[in-house]
């Protein structure tokens, strides 16, 4: 049981002030813009909920949101099973395990714009390793800047490259925590590999997998830099994900009202997922 102590607030105060400065003031700005129209010169006119209606009804927003959900769905459906499969085939111990872990974590430590630039260089049709291989060795016509399908495949493969290791690391952490006695018992019972996975490994990985899915959902939903550097949202608008579109509207066209309204809708989704994450995490805390 934790001690009841209201003075603990003093411990939390620095964090509270710092995060409030960064979160609440910008949030107020956004709310302010979302209900007003401006033509510059600091002149603002009350618009009520017009921007929200406009954004929610605009085809552009529907398309960006659709692309965003498609992207998130695709990377989840690839990264989660792939990550689990790789974690399962890793040795439990040995001198190679730390080496594997470090190498696998490496992509996650590369600045996001470098990830985009790296994949750009990697996929250039005539001088990139992958681009050359596909075009000249396999004879598949591949040019990400011309072909929307190629652009989509590339941003999905890039994300798989970038973040599957997160799922691997978390699943692996769950797997090594299973005591050997479980496996011995399974062997005595003559359980198949599938049964061991279904009834021992998967339940033990439940918490870490929940974390992995929610983190990947959130982070892929907020993704901006990597696809922006790689495709710039193109060709056309075909890979303009939600964040890219938002920055285009806010900083490119300076349509502050619609951008702010879009931000708040974005935030509502964030809030919902965070709540889900929090509930699932703390439910587990209480049990332990």
């Amino acid at each position, binding site marked *: 049981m*934790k001690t009841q*102590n209201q003075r*603990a*607030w003093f411990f*939390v105060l*620095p*964090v*509270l002030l*710092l*995060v409030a400065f*960064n*979160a609440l003031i*910008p*949030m107020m700005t956004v709310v302010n813009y979302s209900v007003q129209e401006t033509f510059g010169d600091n002149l603002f006119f009350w618009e009520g909920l017009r921007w929200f209606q406009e954004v929610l009804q605009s085809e552009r927003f529907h398309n960006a949101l659709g692309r965003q959900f498609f992207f998130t769905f695709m990377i989840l459906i690839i990264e989660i099973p792939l990550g689990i499969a*790789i974690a399962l*085939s890793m040795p439990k111990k040995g001198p190679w395990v*730390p080496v*594997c*872990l*470090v*190498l696998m*974590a*490496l992509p*996650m*430590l*590369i*600045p*996001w*714009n*470098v990830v985009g*630039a*790296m994949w750009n*260089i*990697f996929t250039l049709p005539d*001088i*990139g*390793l*992958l681009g*050359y291989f596909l075009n*000249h060795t396999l004879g598949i016509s591949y040019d990400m800047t011309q072909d929307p399908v190629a652009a989509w495949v590339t941003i999905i493969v890039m994300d798989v*490259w970038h973040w*599957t290791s997160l799922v691997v*690391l978390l699943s*692996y*952490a769950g797997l090594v925590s299973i005591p050997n006695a479980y496996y011995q018992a399974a062997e005595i019972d003559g359980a198949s590999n599938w049964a061991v996975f279904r009834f021992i490994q998967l339940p033990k990985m439940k918490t*870490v997998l929940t974390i992995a899915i929610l983190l990947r959902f959130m982070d892929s939903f*907020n993704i*901006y830099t990597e696809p922006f550097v790689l495709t710039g949202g193109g060709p056309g608008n075909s890979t303009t994900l939600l*964040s*890219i579109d938002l920055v285009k509207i*806010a*900083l490119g066209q300076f349509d502050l009202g619609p951008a702010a309204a879009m931000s708040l809708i974005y*935030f509502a989704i964030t*809030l919902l*997922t*965070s*709540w889900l994450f*929090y509930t699932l*995490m703390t439910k*587990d805390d209480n049990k332990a």
Partner: protein
Amino acid sequence: MRMRNLVPILYILFLMLPIYWLVAMSFKTTNEILSGFSLFPQTWTFENYIAIFTDPTWYWGYINSIIYVTLNTVISVSVALPAAYAFSRYSFVGDKHLFFWLLTNRMAPAAVFALPFFQLYSAVGLFDTHLAVALAHCLFNVPLAVWILEGFMSGVPKELDETAYVDGYSFPRFFMTIFLPAIKSGVGVAAFFCFMFSWVEMLLSKTLTAVEAKPIAAVMTRTASSAGYELGLLAAAGTLTIIPGAIVIYFVRNYIAKGFALGRV
């Protein structure tokens, strides 16, 4: 069994390919890059690296990034320590709501904050300083540090605190000499993750700087867009950004998963 080992090996190979290509490109001359495809650099050259290390715009990009990343790591961990202690040991009015609210900031999309941050930090006169970027990155790094540290602290039995008080330790002395050493791996992991997320983030650091504190990411995008085909230079700059991460990751290799799980594995 042998077949099984093939899976991680193939996966690591897949991870290394684009990195290999980036490094290979960085050792090629511009002529070689433009003249066609070559799997290995035909004539090794260091001119791309020399260009970076002799041009102040380039190497100051790295120095600026390292300054704000370090500043951010120090600020995040030091404010998160007492807060994480409070969350792990005491219950107080609103603790759960506060903990949840912190998490929402970790999950918030940076794109939403770009413009309001620009206005906020311009208004307080911090625009284009290292401190501005360091403080802005606190938005997601402080919540992360609090969550990770809270996870590690909750693993330390409460009896440790109680025994120390019985022995007559004051709180600051207990915290510095007994408690901190007990969770030092947690502090290391929290610092690593703050370092990492501040290092890889680009949208905010680019928005909040112009000249004086311009991060390496911004220098790179300018080269990519203005000079058009300086791929070798771009590749060399990219290669150099991988090094700090590769060094620090070695120290936390056994705790990476715990950090990503925000201290809850």
